[in-house]
């Protein structure tokens, strides 16, 4: 009986928290924009292709058209509808970015938390490796990997991308852990000598969830631009609809940058990327404030 009432009680509390959370979300303008944007892109990637059929048949006469009802974002150098290409490209772009972010978070958290928590030699060695990774310029490495690996699916690409982004995260996570370690509840947990694993998974990580989520979004942004770089280097199997490829074709191959008529074709993928960046940025900083009320106070 008593138990039950207790249950109900903390259910109520939960509900209350949730409602506050939501009201906070609705409060923050950037947050709203962020959510709208992200949702927009998700829809684009999921149901978009169904709504806007893709026709890659070239139509040279109608190349570089300016936006119209027929072509929402005009047409490319081969007279194909830019908008529908964007839509069909979005899925892979999003997936790649998501996977890349996921993997780098994974490695980052793993290495970071181990190093930060166990300290001592483990820490020193791991951190040396991390530093080493950070000292290796990522661009030429990408060039090399472009020549070495033959990846095709978003997962693989994500993995390759993450290989050179996890290091920074590991560092940050470690720093977080170190600061958390000094907190009472961790001290207590250690005194009660719970297993490291338990402490990391049940005490530390939950307390860094906000940080992790925010960084997940951050690294997703990074991954997006990076994946475009990869397409530029030709590491990803060619797809006409990949935003990176579109941009690349626009700027470098077909010299659209010099063709006033074609400017739309160049701006389309760029705009999409910018929008995504802006949205996620808003979302990230919004969430940050949400999780860290201190920031809210001096709004």
């Amino acid at each position, binding site marked *: 009986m008593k138990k039950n009432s207790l249950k109900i009680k903390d259910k109520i509390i939960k509900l209350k928290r949730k409602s*506050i959370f939501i*009201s*906070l979300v609705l*409060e923050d303008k950037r947050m709203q924009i962020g959510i709208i944007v992200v949702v927009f892109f998700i829809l684009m990637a999921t149901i978009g292709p169904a709504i806007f059929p893709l026709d890659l048949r070239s139509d040279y006469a109608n190349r570089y058209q300016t936006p119209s009802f027929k072509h929402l974002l005009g047409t490319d150098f081969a007279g194909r509808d830019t908008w529908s290409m964007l839509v069909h490209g979005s899925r892979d772009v999003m997936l790649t970015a998501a996977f890349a972010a996921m993997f780098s978070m994974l490695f980052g958290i793993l290495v970071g938390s181990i190093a930060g928590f166990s300290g001592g030699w483990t820490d020193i060695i791991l951190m040396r490796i991390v530093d080493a990774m950070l000292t290796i310029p990522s661009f030429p490495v990408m060039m090399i990997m472009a020549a070495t690996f033959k990846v095709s699916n978003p997962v693989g690409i994500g993995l390759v991308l993450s290989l050179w982004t996890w290091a920074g995260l590991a560092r940050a996570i470690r720093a977080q852990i170190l600061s958390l370690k000094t907190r009472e509840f961790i001290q207590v947990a250690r005194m009660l000598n719970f297993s490291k694993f338990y402490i990391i998974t049940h005490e530390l990580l939950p307390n860094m969830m906000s940080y992790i989520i925010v960084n997940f979004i951050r690294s997703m942004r990074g991954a997006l631009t990076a994946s475009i770089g990869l397409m530029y280097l030709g590491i990803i199997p060619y797809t006409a609809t990949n935003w990176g490829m579109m941009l690349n074709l626009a700027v470098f191959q077909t010299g659209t940058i010099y063709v006033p008529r074609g400017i739309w074709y160049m701006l389309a993928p760029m705009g999409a990327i910018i929008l995504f960046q802006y949205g996620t940025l808003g979302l990230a900083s919004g969430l940050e404030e949400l999780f860290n009320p201190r920031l809210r*106070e*001096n*709004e």
Partner: protein
Amino acid sequence: MENKKGLKIKELTVDYKVKEGNLRSVCDASFDVEEAKVTGLIGESGCGKTTIVQAILDILPSNGYIESGRVIYKGKNILELSPEEQRKCRWKELATVFQAAQNSLNPVMKIKDQFYDVFEDHDTKLSHRQIMKKMEEKIRLVKLDPGRVLHLFPHQLSGGMKQRAVIAMSLLLEPEVLILDEPTTALDLITQSYIMTLLKDINEKLNITMLMVSHDISNVAKLADKIVVMYAAQIIEIGTVEDIFYNSFHPYTKGLIDSTPSIVGDPSNKKPIAGDPPSLINPPSGCRFSPRCKYAKDICFKVFPVLKEVENNFHAVSCHRWQELREFMN
């Protein structure tokens, strides 16, 4: 009685915008801070003491705003001054020692430089040497060694030293009014009393007007001439220390005094007040203390008591039944 240089707080009302709605954290508060005297502002934490301080200095957090009221100083309402005028008047006229003063020092600057800034930004026509002299003098005033302290960074000082440094800083421009917000919390008892005596003789030496905000009535009693008691955003009683301690009319004040442990005397006769302070978002309709008041009658629950002067020298109280109660309370 004359009170030119003192502070007059008139019908001050401060609200906070919060998710749950409007939080009235100071409700129509009026009291005087008399020149050269020490006025104590007492109340449980969260009752709006600090808000009053922030309101006086007009440095409320961005989601708080002054609904109504005036703060009269030297005949003009300082809340209506232009930001620049306000800035000029701060520290020169009213200085503040903040709650948890340890944190009110900039960790990356030497004490000296932090002091120096104050002079620089309030265009005191003082030469460098004069300024240095002033700093040292103030540091000495708080019984610190200027030769050393000035050249140190905050993290190199102990809590007590920081506190004193902050007090010294507040005196740099010889302000008319000094507001002390919980000046001694987070310090050990010895330091506490030390700081208190320090403040006392500062008050006597410079006969500086002081508003001392604290939750610890016994502590304040040591140097206050007059005490203002707050409960749930309202002022419920004002009076001299004597009045408050030996002749208080409000059940809450009484309870507060009884509940405070005094170093002397037998701890067994402590009677803490039952219950919790009410929420300020939707406070009780009648007397805000009524839910906790053991003498509450139905009028207390319905009608909102106003602060009215009783008898002599400004002793004021807001209670419906103070007359009946005074007999058996004291």
